[in-house]
């Protein structure tokens, strides 16, 4: 980590996005994580994605649980409200926040201890409900803040820095999310910003429960030989099923694909996700097929990455609950209180 304060001034020629913000406007406080931490790369990808999408930072609400990953929302989008909730319970707090104001963009940041160990229940249920959010799981298979214990995503047989071997079966968060009804499921690697940034953009545009498991090596406790979440291991075993491009609007689709088939998946908001297939047999709109292929790859020791599943006709919790368009937190007495006359009628019916 660094103790140097970020300078306020920046170069006048820094590029601006359509709404006039530079990338610096999407930054937060200086990270207090270890140098080389995969999480910082994810923060950088998030900054890039929000900047490219021309989203005003203050229209984003960032929620997290507890752990190294959950600290990161302080390190990007400094002009957004953030909420560091309790361990493993970010999903419920995010659900409540989302109900209160459907107009903001909700970003949930969590870790593998937070989502797969203590918070597996809330992780599963938030997917079931289809809360409109981008849920980033910064997955390093280890507890960093408490110095190196295994988490529930650690692979069976992987070795801790102290040499202990993990005997427990791992929780595959991507499979859980698919099974529980998430409508956008992806996996990526913090060391591959080219892959991660468009995935984040597409997840933000997705109107439903979007989940990205990002393998993010812990340089302090889980980057050694014998670990299956180290930079080297993930680079060697990364099997991308597709490359993704994201267009905010329908008009701007001009791209040159040189190899592989291209799949276009239009989104509710008019944006289009374009996928360049790297694997001929992979269909990201087939939920059952995706589950099968993820399982097959796991047996071979491969880590399948890319956009693994996308439901084009996704609905979110507000649609399920048939809620009004005006955010709840803007409704007043006039909208909410039926008044004394109605109460008198209720009284009359109770005599």
């Amino acid at each position: 980590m660094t103790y140097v304060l970020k300078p306020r001034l920046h170069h006048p020629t820094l590029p601006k996005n359509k709404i006039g913000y530079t990338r610096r406007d999407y930054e937060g406080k200086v990270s207090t994580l270890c140098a080389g931490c995969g999480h910082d790369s994810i923060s950088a990808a998030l900054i890039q994605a929000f900047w490219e999408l021309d989203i005003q930072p203050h229209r984003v609400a960032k929620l997290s649980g507890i752990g190294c990953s959950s600290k990161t929302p302080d390190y990007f989008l400094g002009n957004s409200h953030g909420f560091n909730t309790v361990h493993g319970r970010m999903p419920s707090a995010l659900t409540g926040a989302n109900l209160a104001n459907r107009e903001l963009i909700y970003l949930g940041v969590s870790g593998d201890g937070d989502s797969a160990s203590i918070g597996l229940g809330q992780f599963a249920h938030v997917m079931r409900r289809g809360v409109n959010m981008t849920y980033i799981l910064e997955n390093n298979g280890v507890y960093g803040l408490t110095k190196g214990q295994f988490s529930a995503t650690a692979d069976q047989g992987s070795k801790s820095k102290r040499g202990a071997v993990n005997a427990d079966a791992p929780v595959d968060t991507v499979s859980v999310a698919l099974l529980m009804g998430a409508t956008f499921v992806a996996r990526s690697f913090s060391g591959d910003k080219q892959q991660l940034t468009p995935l984040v953009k597409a997840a933000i545009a997705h109107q439903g429960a979007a989940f990205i498991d990002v393998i993010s090596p812990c340089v302090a406790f889980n980057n050694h030989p014998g670990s299956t979440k180290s930079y080297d291991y993930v680079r060697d075993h990364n099997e991308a099923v597709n490359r993704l491009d994201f267009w905010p609007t329908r008009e701007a689709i001009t791209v040159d694909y040189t190899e592989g088939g291209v799949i276009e998946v239009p989104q509710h908001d008019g944006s289009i996700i374009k996928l360049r297939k790297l694997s001929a047999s992979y269909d990201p709109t087939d939920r059952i097929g995706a589950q099968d292929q993820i399982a097959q790859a796991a047996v071979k020791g491969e880590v399948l990455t890319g956009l693994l599943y996308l439901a084009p006709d996704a609905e979110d919790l507000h649609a399920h609950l048939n809620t009004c368009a005006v955010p709840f937190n803007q409704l007043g007495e006039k909208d909410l209180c039926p008044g004394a006359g109605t109460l008198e009628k209720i009284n009359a019916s109770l005599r």
Partner: protein
Amino acid sequence: MKRIEAVNDFVIKFANVNGSGSASANELFAKSFLRMGIPVSPRNIFPSNIQGLPTWYEVRVTEKGHLGRRGGVDLMVAMNPQTWAEDVKEIDPGGYLFYDNTKPLPPSRFRDDIQVVGMPLTEICNATYTDSRERQLFKNILYVGALAGMMGVEPEVIAELIGEQYKGKEKLLKPNLNAFKMGLDYARNHLKDAIGLKTKRAYAVGDKIFIEGNAAAALGCLYGGATVCAWYPITPSSSLAEAFQRSCSKLRVDKDTGKNKFAIIQAEDELASIGIVVGAGWNGARAFTATAGPGISLMSEFIGLAYFAEIPAVIIDVQRGGPSTGMPTRTQQSDVMKCAYASHGDTKHVLLFPEDPYECFEMGAQAFDLAERLQTPVFMMTDLDIGMNQRLCNPLVWDDARRYDRGKLMTEKMLEAGMEFGRYLDVDGDGIPYRTLPGTHPTKGAYFTRGTSKNAHAMYSEAGPDYVYNMQRLLKKFETAKTLVPKPVLTPSKEPARFGCIYYGSTSPAMHEALEALSQSGIFVNALRVRAFPFQDEIFDFVQSHSKVFVVEQNRDAQLKTLLVNDAGINPASLISVLHYDGEPITARFITKEISQIVTALNVRPIKKDKAA
């Protein structure tokens, strides 16, 4: 043997089998008294079971309006062979046993000191109906008819109630009316003057309404502007969330768009329920959860976060018997301490103690104003006795001029005008800082909410002075809460009194009846009903001005007394606990006996009536 003779003042208890359809028949019977202008107070005594176990329904008919549980039974309607022995035993000497005498029972199954009234209910039903479910259901209506005949309940009143119940369901209306008539005629022909408990029309109900506390609390939340309800099913609170759902479906759907101005989530557990409430509160929606003791235990971590990060939340605890799973279908006031100090570390929370459905409505709505004004969790502490029983109470009141108090919200305009924003900065000296909602302003007012220690500007800080500043400010805020929560209500005795009495919540009706009985025997007590925590100075002063103060509670460990000693600095030597915690609602007879005994033991026997004890 002297038999009990009474007019408009007696207790009838129905012993039934759960799931036999008795509940609606018994409720019909209870309501018939209300329509005759006689107050009643019914209570469900039910098992944690769906079908087959014993269940009781106790109806206190009380022209004087004593709505607490009296204790004792004047007439037992014994419809459950399984509990026969204990039901027969419970009848007061001179009281009545009404039973189905289709099969003869040996004399050893009865008592010499009670009146036995038999009616061949099964025989009549078997002769009249062929369907087994009909035989079961109409047996209930049959005994209602017979009781009405014996006690002089106006048949027109019951016919009217049956008509209301089966409005639009003609197929059911007719047979129910017939069954009722059959029972009525049987009693008139065969059981004339069998029972000395009589009714006659009175005018003691007035404009009062008959409603369950849970339904009233749900309406309070609706009127109070709650838009988010997250809950997990748990007795005795489930019917509150369900009532909120029903009321919202009628009153909160936008007429033009058909869209809902509410969201109700049945969460996966209580941890998620409170998480959703806290998340919604953080983002400016009025949100609540309804639960019982075990739920509070699970919610404690989030409650601590909401206290420390200062997020509004409303929690309705419909208390039941604890600890652990305890007595899920029985009543207690045993979560007082748990809620007052819920969560680890130094925490304190605002509690409200409604006495009846009327206050469940009033405080239910007020809780949201308090939660937003104080930016903290607010608990409404009801219990099974209030929550799950229909209770006669004053009509619910709402003033259309009333505005929601959204508390100190800093708006975009205020930020734009250059007002200083420090999320945890005490700018007004009342301990309450300003908050901003997410999305308020592009460059000003954003902050990071956390459960870790922070400075006045919400920056992470482990510095002792920053931590102490916030903890002291939270105490100051709790002082401010004293000025906002409902004040205690004093019921002065008719004569000057040395003794005082503090009580709260569902104890109220039994307490008032006990005060009357005590004063008749020359024991005069000033009574103070505590309606909220933190305790105001009035409570301290009340204790100071009496030599001894009884604290009447429905728990084993004298939880409110502990709170009075711990938080209001009251000398424990001046407090005497009167505790009732067997799961049944406290009775006037119990309070009267306990206080009389203690007063006697303190050697202050009243010399003659009307003289102060």
